[in-house]
Every structure is written in structure tokens, then in C-alpha cells.
């Protein structure tokens, strides 16, 4: 196991941080929540943030907190898919393909929501689930899983997630494509 300081990782994968924060901002705007401050990237911890109004609506909280997870995952699949064949399967030295793979992995690596976001959701999800909120009920296992994975960042769980999505996603797409 080797240690690389967080700011260095953030710098190497800065597009992922920007996309993550842009995702938070997008969902805040979508749900008309006030945004007090936004930092898309900085050399510090956290590398980016969005300070926004709190809401009692679980659905809004869920999408504002988890939106970047879905958006980053989707964009990771899109960019890695554009580069997957030349980089992994065909072994063609195409700089544009490598650029997209880096971009895709950087975005995928920053998909995990922050521990604070997950804690906030975890605090209200069981209550809302008992009140019959279906999204809260469905999201409980996902929140729990991401909470655990978030701790796994020290052992590169975030990078592992990015790689898994960036490889398995395109493989699934191309397998289906080949069978079509």
C-alpha cells in the first residue's frame, strides 16, 4: 500500500472534483434550494464544496447528496466507453483515447458522496422510510454501502470504483452491442 496525499490525488483527478460539485449545484438549482457558496476546486480538504440551504424534503436531500454519485458514474461510463476499445481491447496508441480514459476515471473516482452528505441522509432515511417514503426505503442499503466504501478510500476504494465502472460498464455495453 502506498500513500499519496489527498491534494495530490485531487490535483491529478481535478475534473472529477469539478463534475462532483457541479452535480451538487445542478440538483440544488433543480430543486430551487438556496446556494450560499460554491468551490469547484481548491488545494485543501475538502477539494470542493457546495454550501446550500437545508431542506426537510428527503427526496430533495437525496438527490442533492447522491446526484453527483449517479452523474459521475454515468459520465465515467460515457467517457470510458469512448476510450475503452482502443485503450483496453485493441491496444491502439491513440492520445485522445487515453485522455478520455483519464477523464472518465477521474470523474468515476470522485463519484462517492462525502461522509457528511451520507451522515445527513442516514440520519433521516430510517425515519422517512418508516413514514412510507419509498425512496428512503430503497436508498437505505445504498447509503449504508457507500458509507462503508467511503471509509475504504484509505485503501483506494474510490479509485477501485472508478476503474470498475470504467471497465465493467463499457464491457457490458460492448457485449450487448456485439450480441445485437
Amino acid at each position, binding site marked *: 500500500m502506498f500513500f499519496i496525499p489527498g491534494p495530490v490525488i485531487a490535483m491529478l483527478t481535478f475534473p472529477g472534483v469539478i463534475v462532483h460539485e457541479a452535480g451538487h449545484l445542478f440538483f440544488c438549482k433543480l430543486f430551487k434550494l*438556496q446556494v450560499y457558496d460554491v468551490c469547484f476546486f481548491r488545494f485543501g480538504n475538502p477539494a470542493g464544496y457546495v454550501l446550500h*440551504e437545508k431542506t426537510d424534503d428527503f427526496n430533495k436531500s437525496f438527490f442533492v447528496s447522491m446526484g453527483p454519485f449517479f452523474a459521475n458514474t454515468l459520465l465515467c461510463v460515457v467517457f470510458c466507453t469512448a476510450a475503452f*476499445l482502443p485503450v483496453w*481491447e485493441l491496444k*491502439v496508441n491513440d492520445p485522445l483515447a487515453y485522455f*478520455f480514459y483519464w477523464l472518465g476515471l477521474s470523474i468515476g473516482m470522485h463519484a462517492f458522496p462525502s461522509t457528511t452528505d451520507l451522515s445527513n441522509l442516514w440520519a433521516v432515511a430510517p425515519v422517512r422510510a418508516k413514514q412510507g417514503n419509498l425512496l428512503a426505503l430503497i436508498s437505505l442499503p445504498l447509503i449504508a454501502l457507500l458509507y462503508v466504501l467511503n471509509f475504504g478510500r484509505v485503501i483506494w476504494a474510490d479509485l477501485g470504483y472508478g476503474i470498475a465502472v470504467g471497465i465493467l460498464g463499457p464491457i457490458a455495453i460492448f457485449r450487448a452491442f*456485439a450480441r445485437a
Partner: protein
Amino acid sequence: MRQGTCCECGLTTTIRSFHSFTGKTYCEPCLWKASQQASEKGEPSEYISLLDNSVCARCGSSSGDTEDYPTIGRLPLCPTCASQVTNWPYPTWLKASLAVLLALLAVALVHGRRYFHAGRSMYQGERLVEQQKYEAAIPYLREALQVAPGSDKAALLEAKAALKVGDVEEAQKTLKGHNGGHFEDEQDPRFLEVRGLWERALQAVDKAERASKLAEQPGQSAEAARLMHEAASVYPEASGLAISADLLDEGAAFERKDYDAFVAVTQKEWKERPGPDTAASLASALACKYATTGNADYRQQSEEMLRKADQMTQGNIQAMKSFEEYAERIHYRLVSREIIDKPEYDRRFRQTSQRK
């Protein structure tokens, strides 16, 4: 800015430094004590920070002591900040980056069309290999290799397919032409499988070459046939080796004048691969039986097979030419009941005719 006073210590300063707890105003140190005491007694210990509504919570600008800023999301905000927080704009650089990224993605998709095509061919080839349709897989994999000659996967799949249909030459071309025969992961099961197949094929080719050389020497056809059978059993995927072994069996049977065996081998060949060559071979074997026994049934059967071979060669000039040469000798055998091999036949009849 508005002032406040702590209910415990009497400190007076700006109201933003105070907190409200159980309806009373506390400074920070007194709040901690009061909150802790309440907590120890099991009473609620929640508090809220006091806001000065004449001061913008975001930029700190003051509206003057007489006027409050409107609150948005519980916070007092000046008009500029209020407009910003209710409709936070996406920065121009972010929008520009997104546009550039989308343009690049479009370029990548257009530029990558040939990769998608090659990838699709490779996956189709892979699927056909998995279904053991090796012959059908080769054109797809060849197409993939044209775009991606460096792909280990495509090269190994193509080599495997070629080796599975007995095309050693094609496999050799692919394997040697791939990064000078170098593969990234030599422990990859796909690589190990192809290596196993390749080694078997080389062993078989070596035996087949030795068998061919022996077959050219007089009296060695039995040994040549044995070696060729070994080659065929080492590498059964190459059906050509089994055919060669059968042909050598024919030669060996003819050489030792074992015409029953000659008939048996040629009958087997005719049954397995009906064609002009096998029909003519069976006609030849039956003619030998007629020559040695005088049994007219053999002659009739031989002539019947010659007719079949003749019909099968129609339209194929090369095959017709070869058949004519062969048929001439078989006819001679049937007419004279004398069994002579080709060199002897050529010596007796063809050199003379050439001289004429």
C-alpha cells in the same frame, strides 16, 4: 449593528456573537456551561445562533440599524447576495469546459468509428470462437487485427481459430506478426491455450514433413504412413493430415501388393469424403482386385467408380486433366490385368509418345 447582552455574565457586544438557549441570550462560554448543566439534568440542550438581520449573513454588509434584510432560507441577505443564492449562476468557464468536452466527445466518437467497428468484429469473432465456429470467426478477427495489430486478444483469438481449423500457416502469420511474437501476459489462459495448440501443431508439422520425405523413397511408404498417422493423431484439428495419412496408407498397401487393404482404405475414403479423387482411388483399387482375381464384378465396380469420378470432375479443368491421366492407367489395368505403377507406365507408354 445591533448589540446584545449575555443573561449570565452581562457581556455586551454585537448580537451575532450570541446564542439563544431556553429563550435566553447567552455568550459562547456561558452557553457551554448552561447547555452542559441542562444535559446533565436530562433537559433539552439545543440552542440556536442569533442573527442580526441588519447584517448580510453571506457578505457581512450592514443595512443600517433601522432596516432589516429579508431572510432567505432563515438567513438575512443583502439584495446582491439574495439574487446570487436564489439563482447561483454556472460559471462561464464551467459552461465553456462542458462545451469543449462535448465537442471532444463528438470528435472521439467520429474518430473512433473504426475502433467500434473493429471492436464489434472482435466481439463477434470471440463469440464464434466460444461457439466453436472457428472457420466463421477468422474473417471477423482478421478485420479486427487490421485496425488493431497490437491487440493481444484479437491475435490470440485469431491464432486459436486458425489452429483449430488446422491452418498452421495463418496462425504462424498472426503470431509472428504480432509485436514480433511477443505477448504482454504470457500467463494469460488464452495465451497458454494457443501456445499448447501451437506446440502440438509444430510437432505434427515436423512429423508430416518427415513422412513426406520418406514417402518419396522407395519401400518407405509404410513408415511414412505410420509417421503421418502419428502427426494426424497429435494434431487432429488438421484434417489434411488425416487425408495424407490415408493416401500414404493407399500407397503402402499398393506397394506391398495388399489389394484387399487397398480396397478397404479407398472405400473408407470414398465414404468419408466422396469426390473425384476418392472415386478414382477406389476405381484403381478395384481394378487391382480385378487384375489379380479376374472377377468381373470388380471390373464392373471399377468402371462404375470411374464413371462417377468422371461426372464429378465436369466443369473443373484442373481436376479433369488429372483424372484423365489417372483413368488412362486404370483402363490399361482393366484391359491388360497387369498392375504397374505410374513411373513404369510413363516409361513404357508416355516417353515413347512424347518422342513421337
